[in-house]
């Protein structure tokens, strides 16, 4: 079984390692991520102003093109997933907007594509039990804190990813990999998102609160589903150190990186050199690299 796949800008360029590990893992799990031809940027924000039709056109076009290729579209990046899925939902529910959009993009798309996040593919299509069986290097009770962020969960009615107040899908995933999943209250709190370009110190403070919350519960590593969250939580730790003298750093991994470790991919292929806080010492301590 192959899945139509939308990489998005970040995973196509700066976070290529996240993309590559996912592709490699998929093959080990018996399916292939087939890149959507002629894809464009999704726009990275779902327009909240109701009169902003223009911002809906790129994701609409992506959806329309994907529909020509198949029935399911998957993404890795939580932001792309949010934008595409919400647009899909809007096209489904709002006849008036649907008509306008179709006129603009000169296509006829009815909103009938299924949009799934890669984690949903793993759970619904492959099954976490299958993954557990195929894990080459169980994560040895690595104390991993699953950070959901906002984009997968909200708005609940449109995303339908998991329970909005206490999601568990990510935990199940980590457990399947042999890690010990650490529950922490900030797992659904926002990392500051694009404030890292607007008001960076706000994003830094958000990251500080999330990281320390996880550490208080005993986390050794934070695992994220979103490249922007990963950036805010990982790359900002040097700024946090300046603002909070008591702060201790903690590695932050993208979920495909951890999947790669468990599937036994070579550490060199996982792009750890791009992580600001080096996870290698931890992984070594756990006997995982």
């Amino acid at each position: 079984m192959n899945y139509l796949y939308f990489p998005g800008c970040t995973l196509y360029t700066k976070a290529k390692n996240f993309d590559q590990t996912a592709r490699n893992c998929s093959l080990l799990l018996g399916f292939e991520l087939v890149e959507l031809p002629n894809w464009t940027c999704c726009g990275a924000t779902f327009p909240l102003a109701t009169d902003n039709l223009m911002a809906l056109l790129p994701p609409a076009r992506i959806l329309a093109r994907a529909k020509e290729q198949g029935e399911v579209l998957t993404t890795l990046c939580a932001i792309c997933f949010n934008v595409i899925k919400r647009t899909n939902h809007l096209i489904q529910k709002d006849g008036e907007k649907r008509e306008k959009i179709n006129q603009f993009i000169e296509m006829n798309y009815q909103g009938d594509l299924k949009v799934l996040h890669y984690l949903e593919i793993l759970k619904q299509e492959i099954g976490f039990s299958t993954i557990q069986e195929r894990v080459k290097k169980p994560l040895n009770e690595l104390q991993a804190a699953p950070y959901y962020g906002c984009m997968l969960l909200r708005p609940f009615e449109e995303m339908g990813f998991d329970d909005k107040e206490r999601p568990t899908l990510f935990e199940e995933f980590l457990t399947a990999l042999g890690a010990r999943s650490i529950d922490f209250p900030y797992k659904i709190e926002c990392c500051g998102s694009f404030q890292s370009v607007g008001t960076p110190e706000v994003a830094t403070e958000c990251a500080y609160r999330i990281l320390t919350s996880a550490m208080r519960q005993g986390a050794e590593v934070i695992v994220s589903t979103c490249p922007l969250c990963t950036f805010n939580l990982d790359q900002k730790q040097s700024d946090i150190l300046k603002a909070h003298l008591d702060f201790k750093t903690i590695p932050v991994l993208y979920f495909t990186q951890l999947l790669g470790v468990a599937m036994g991919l070579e550490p060199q292929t996982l792009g750890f050199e791009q992580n600001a806080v080096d996870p290698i010492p931890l992984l070594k301590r756990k006997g995982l690299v």
Partner: protein
Amino acid sequence: MGGENKIEMGTSENGFIKRAMVIGGGIAGITASIDIGNAGYEVLLIERLPSIGGHMLQLSETFPTLDCAQCTLTPKTVETGQHPRIRLHTYSEVVRVAGRAGNFSVQIRKKAAYVDWEKCTGCGLCQQKCPSRYPSEFDRRMGLGKAIYTLSPQAVPNKPVINPEHCRYFLEKKCRVCEKICPVGAIHYQQEDRLIEEKVGAIVVATGFDLMPVERFGEYGYGEIPDVIDGLSFERLNSASGPTNGEIRRPSDGRIPKEVVFIQCTGSRDPERYMPYCSRVCCMYTAKHARLYKHKVHDGQVYIFYMDIRSTGKGYEEFIQQTMEEGILYLRGRVSRIFREGEKIVVWGVDTLTGKKVEVLADLVVLATAIVPHQETKTLAQILGIHSDSYGFLTEAERKLKPVETNQEGIYLAGCAQGPKDIAETVAHANAAASKVQALFATH
């Protein structure tokens, strides 16, 4: 004192049966039954639990006088139990109703108590010796009950029932301790549900309320944080007959909480996610809770998050003002999220009057969860052929002028089954229902 009733009535010449059935043995049903009984008519009082008293029996004190709830209620339950014209059918449910005003045929299921109540003297030995313990529903799962139980030592009738889900005999076919210890041989494991038929001329529905379960509130921890409890649980904690003998101790570790947060409108006034209506009693019982707590834990601090303080009854506003003056901090705003952090419960709220986000590290959080109709009310409404609204509350014939009548002649409403109300309003509502029954009987 009062009258010595002399007038006996049964059936009038035209066959109109002058005998009423009251469904629900809480304060509403009790009040209606006594009123109808005192007017000289026979009453069947049906209660689904083993004894009467309803939620009021779970309360510690009542606002605004801080009278002990047991003390005001038990004389009424005793009076009901001894009333010459009231026949109690506890541990019973109405299965079927046919006919019309003056001639309803009713089928009642008397649930198997596994105890022969005719023989039982209520000595209580069986309860003492029963080895099975499990969280008691009456104590809101904060205390332990036995598999053979009465709801309280002061229960009316004071006869126990066996819960087969917890009884070792039913589960494992062993034990039989109660059977051995019973001095009168009243234990009867083979007992089965019985269906009985009755004829009545009028029906009062007083099935009362439930609280919306704390498990519904994701943002407040899905009921899984032990020290986040609901209002009725706090009543039990505060009650002398409750699991802590009236000491305010938090469920998780038994410590006395020093920072206590009360949250109003949990599930009420929330059309988007839960119930749009106001539950009417929470503002007052929370103020009462806060004061009772403060009287017991002098160095403790109470925080109350509210949207609007609703103290409309007689003496209520004065009660609220006094509560504030005792140093209880009212914060106008909702609470967005509650989570556990170590031994503390982190409460994220707001004070809209300063516009600031507020964080409280609490030891105990009490949620004033929404009043909802008792779950069986909807089915009962279908059995009776009366209307209920989308929340399940029973619908009165006309909002203003017919607040106890229904769309069916001869069927009347009393208490919270019709909508949230406090005890005083419930009693007046139940009196009114009784008045309608009396008038119906008098005119036929």
